[in-house]
């Protein structure tokens, strides 16, 4: 097999300069100059990473934020250079970057296609040849000679993706492309990427969407703190990552030492309709989240909640007892609280959950489990939009 891409003991160091706090008096210029001479701390974003990608292979790279995935991508696409080691790229490489980042609002759609296409490395002739396909795929034919500042955000995104999707590289880099846009758009991305893969392109895919990684990639690297810790078949490595994510839980203690918590959260688990505990659910499935707790001292007006974070740390949604208007009073002993939904409304992704119990809301936090459990959602009901809204429908017909 031909090797299309190889990383040989590649490291990337960033120098982080410490800001010397100014003591208020003293010349600001002197402080600035002193800061220039201050000692920099080294941060190894990527440390001694080696791997190879064969022609036609799809490699996935997964890991937490700050694991070094994006740095690997930046090194591959030559946006930045390694501190040591060597990267060999055999063929034309293109990165499917955040769509539309090269657009200029004053230029028309057509002009922007040329602009963006050439930024991505296409020749003018190539763009002229593909112009029709690009416009058709984006569905913006009527507006092609309108300045893109008049475009709706949906048209903007579609045109941006369409340009990138019509690149014809030997090696394709994908970074979180599936994280943008609605489900139909993501579907389109996946479909296009599968087609590229079938036509024999070499693909490197970096994503938090573990479902997509599993579906697209032949092999996956798991990165942690700048190093590759596991590599192997997709399913195996994704499973390893999930168990790792669960283990890396941190319980945030909000109490001073020696003090006992009135309430302690013990476990959080997800169950399906049959009552089975599962880590993976599909969009539209029923789900029950069970929080088990132990009460040491009585608490009036307690509030329980489970917050779901996206992989990049944004709060995505919450289950809480607060919204119901009923107040909970806890008596010493063990108990459990169940949050359930008939249809899980979130789209595919991986979600970190935090569990808390507090007195009043917003009130005093009694116990807080920070990002303790992982919920993975795979595509079930395929939806357009940002989330699945549970709904019914009925029909009437007249002659």
């Amino acid at each position, binding site marked *: 097999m031909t090797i299309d891409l190889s990383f040989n003991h590649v490291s990337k160091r960033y120098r982080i300069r410490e800001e010397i706090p100014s003591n208020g008096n003293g010349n600001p210029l002197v402080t600035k100059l002193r800061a220039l001479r201050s000692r920099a701390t080294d941060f190894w974003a990527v440390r001694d990473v080696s791997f190879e990608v064969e022609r036609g292979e799809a490699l996935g790279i997964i890991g937490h934020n700050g694991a070094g995935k994006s740095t690997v991508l930046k090194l591959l*696409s030559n946006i930045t250079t390694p501190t040591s080691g060597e990267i060999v790229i055999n063929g034309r490489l293109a990165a499917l970057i955040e769509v539309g980042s*090269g657009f*200029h609002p*004053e*230029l028309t759609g057509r002009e922007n296609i040329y602009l963006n296409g050439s930024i991505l490395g296409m020749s003018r002739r190539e763009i002229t040849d593909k112009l029709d396909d690009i416009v058709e795929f984006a569905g913006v034919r009527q507006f092609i000679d309108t300045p893109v500042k008049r475009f709706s955000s949906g048209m903007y995104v579609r045109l941006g993706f369409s340009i990138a999707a019509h690149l014809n590289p030997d090696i394709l880099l994908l970074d979180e492309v599936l994280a943008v846009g609605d489900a139909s758009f993501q579907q389109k991305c996946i479909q296009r990427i599968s087609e590229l893969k079938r*036509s024999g392109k070499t693909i490197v895919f970096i994503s938090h969407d573990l479902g997509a990684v599993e579906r697209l990639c032949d092999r996956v690297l798991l990165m942690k703190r700048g190093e590759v810790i596991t590599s192997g078949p997709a399913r195996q490595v994704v499973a390893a990552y999930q168990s790792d994510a669960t283990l890396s839980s941190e319980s945030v203690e909000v109490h001073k030492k020696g003090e006992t918590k009135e309430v302690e959260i013990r476990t959080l688990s997800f169950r399906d309709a049959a009552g089975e505990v599962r880590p993976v659910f599909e969009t539209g499935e029923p789900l029950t989240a069970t929080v088990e707790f132990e009460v040491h001292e009585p608490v009036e007006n307690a509030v329980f909640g489970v917050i779901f974070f996206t992989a990049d740390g944004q709060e995505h949604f919450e289950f809480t007892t607060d919204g119901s208007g009923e107040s909970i009073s806890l008596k010493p002993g063990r108990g459990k609280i169940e949050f359930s939904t008939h249809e899980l409304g979130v789209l595919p992704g991986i979600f970190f959950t935090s569990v808390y119990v507090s007195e009043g809301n917003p009130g005093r936090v009694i116990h807080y489990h920070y990002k303790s459990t992982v919920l993975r959602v795979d595509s079930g009901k395929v939806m357009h939009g940002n989330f699945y809204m549970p709904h019914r429908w009925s029909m009437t017909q007249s002659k």
Partner: protein
Amino acid sequence: MSVPSVNTEAFEREREIVEAPRRVRRITAPSFSPLGLLRGIVVLWQYRDLLYTLSVHRIKVRYKQSVLGILWAVLQPLSLMLIYTLVFSVVARIPTGGTPYPIIAFTGLLLWTLFSTAIINSTNGLVSHAHLVTKVYFPREILPLTYVIAAVFDFLIASVVLIGLMVYYQVAVTWNVLWTVPIVLILTCLVTSMSLVFSALQVRFRDIGVALPLLLQLWMFATPVVYPLSAVPERFRWFYSLNPMVGIVESFRRTVVDGVPPDFATIGVSALIAIVLLPIAYVFFKHVEATIADVI
């Protein structure tokens, strides 16, 4: 909404055509080398389409949504000329040796506008494209270069006014006017080197962008832009001519207005400085380029 499918057959066709020998690229830690200069030029040539598209874009965008559009390229040096004519030919009189002052001023301002707009715009060129620089690779020198190209384009447009002025003042044109081509070429080399250095420095030290207009203002008065070289006392001339812009502006004026060949001593100094500076500036730029995305 249906999900459009993509013509897979087209891909297959492309694949057969594209199965040409592939380019192998090696990326390693940055290092200074004359070979790097050559490699840089080869890669820049591969990206010539981007240079072209971005330069056209630069020119188009500048005058979009302005009523006067491309006329601004003419109006800028023209209005400056009127101001200086008022100051130096009506209020304070400068001896011009018989040449009409507006022509003296316009030739100087024409070249100076090219010089200063190219440098000022390109200095901010990398920083203002941070969103691109951190997301996709292309030879970074393309960004400052497009501003230089746009300034040269504006220069050509504004030159039409110079022709008009020469007709109006009945200035005779000789074959010596052809010297303007190498003179403008030398100026472009000089502008390019300075744009490369300043834009690379601006990424790390934003002070450059702030100090630059002031520096250029001083530089303009140290160059025979709004006065003729003959107004400079003879004993300072030698030192004065070390400024590469002196030879460029003066030689341009001599060949166009006076119809005589350039002064080879002063233009020689300018040419030498420009030719030595350009490769140095390019190697410096390429060295800084490697870490631009980390710093910007």
